[in-house]
C-alpha cells in the first residue's frame, strides 16, 4: 500500500507540474520518474509515448498507466493514473465557478505567456534527450527524419506513422538484420 501511495503522490506531482497538455509532461516525467525515481528509462518513455499516440485516450494517462503497471502491477497502473488526474479534478473544480474570468485576468495571461515560452524550451530539451536514446544509427536517423517531415507537413494520423515505423523496424531488424542491438 505504501508503494501504491508513493506512486499516487509521484504522479500527482507530475500532474500538477504539467502546463499545456501531454507533451509538456515529458520533461517532468524525465526528471521525476526517470531520473529521481528510476521507475522507467528514456527508451521506455519513447515507447510509451509512441503507443499512447495510437491508442485511445489522453497520452498522459496512457503513460502513467504504463509506468505504474510496470513498477507495481495492475494496482500500480490504476494508482499512477488516478494520481496524474487528481490535481486536475481539484484545481478545475475549485476554479470552475470563476474559471473563464480567471483565464481573462491580465496577470494570468502574462504569466502564461512566459510559461509557454518555457514549455517550448523544455520540450526541445526533452526531444533532444529522447533523440539521443532513440536515434542510434543511420536507419533510425532516417526514420526520425522522414516521420518528422511527414508529421510537420501533412495531416496524416499518428496511427499511420506508428504502424509504418513499427513495420520498418521489424523489416530492418528481423528481415535485413540491420541496426545495433536494442535492449
Amino acid at each position: 500500500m505504501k508503494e501504491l501511495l508513493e506512486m499516487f503522490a509521484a504522479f500527482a506531482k507530475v500532474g500538477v507540474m504539467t502546463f499545456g497538455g501531454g507533451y509538456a509532461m515529458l520533461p517532468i516525467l524525465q526528471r521525476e520518474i526517470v531520473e529521481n525515481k528510476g521507475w522507467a528509462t528514456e527508451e521506455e518513455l519513447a515507447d510509451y509515448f509512441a503507443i499512447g499516440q495510437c491508442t485511445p485516450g489522453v497520452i498522459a494517462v496512457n503513460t502513467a498507466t504504463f509506468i505504474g503497471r510496470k513498477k507495481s502491477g495492475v494496482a500500480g497502473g490504476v494508482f499512477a493514473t488516478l494520481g496524474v488526474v487528481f490535481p486536475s479534478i481539484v484545481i478545475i473544480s475549485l476554479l470552475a465557478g470563476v474559471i473563464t474570468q480567471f483565464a481573462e485576468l491580465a496577470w494570468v495571461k502574462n504569466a502564461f505567456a512566459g510559461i509557454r515560452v518555457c514549455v517550448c524550451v523544455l520540450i526541445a530539451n526533452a526531444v533532444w534527450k529522447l533523440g539521443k536514446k532513440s536515434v542510434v544509427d543511420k536507419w533510425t536517423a532516417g526514420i526520425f527524419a522522414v516521420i518528422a517531415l511527414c508529421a510537420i507537413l501533412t495531416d496524416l494520423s499518428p496511427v499511420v506513422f506508428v504502424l509504418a515505423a513499427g513495420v520498418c523496424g521489424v523489416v530492418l531488424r528481423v528481415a535485413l538484420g540491420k541496426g545495433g542491438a536494442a535492449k
Partner: protein
Amino acid sequence: MIYLRLFWEFFQTGLFAVGGGMATLPFLYDISDRTGWFTHAQLADMVAVSESTPGPIGVNMATYVGFLTGGVGGAVTATLGLITPSILVILIISAFLQRFRDSKYVNGAFYGLRPASTAMILAAGVLVVKATFLPNGLAALDWRLLVLAAALLVLTNAVKATKKLHPIVFIAASAAVGVVLRLAE
C-alpha cells in the same frame, strides 16, 4: 442517473479519441449538441483555460464539463469515465508487451517506433512553438519572447549551476518574467 450518463458519455470519448487531449474536442462538441449540458462557447473558453491550468487538457475538459453538469461528483465521474478505457487498453497492451518482451518482432518494432515517437513529439513541439511565438504571424513576433527562450536554453543546458534545477523552477521563473514584463501585452 446523470452520473451514469456522464460516465458513459466520457467513457465513449475516452475510447474513441485517439491521439491525445485535443482529439477529445470533436467528441465534446458532439456531446454538447446531443445533451445540451454545456454550450460550444463554454467549450471554447475551456480550451483557453486548459492551457492556463496544470494537467492534461483532455482531463481538464472532462472535469470542467462534469462539474458544470453535476458538481464535484460530476467532475469525478466524467474524469473516471474518460480514463477508464485508457487504463483498460494500456493494461492489456502492457501485459502483452511483458509477455513478448524477448520477441525479436516486438524488439524490431520498437527499434523503429522510438525514433518515430521522438519525431512526432518534435512535430507537436513545432506546433507549440508556432502558437507561442507566432500567434499573429511573423510580423507580430515579440522579440522579448525570443530573448526569454534563448536565456532558458542557455540556463537549462550550458550553465552548470542551473542546468540541473527542476523544470518547475524554470516554469515558475518564466511565469514571473511574464508578469513583470507583461509578456502577453
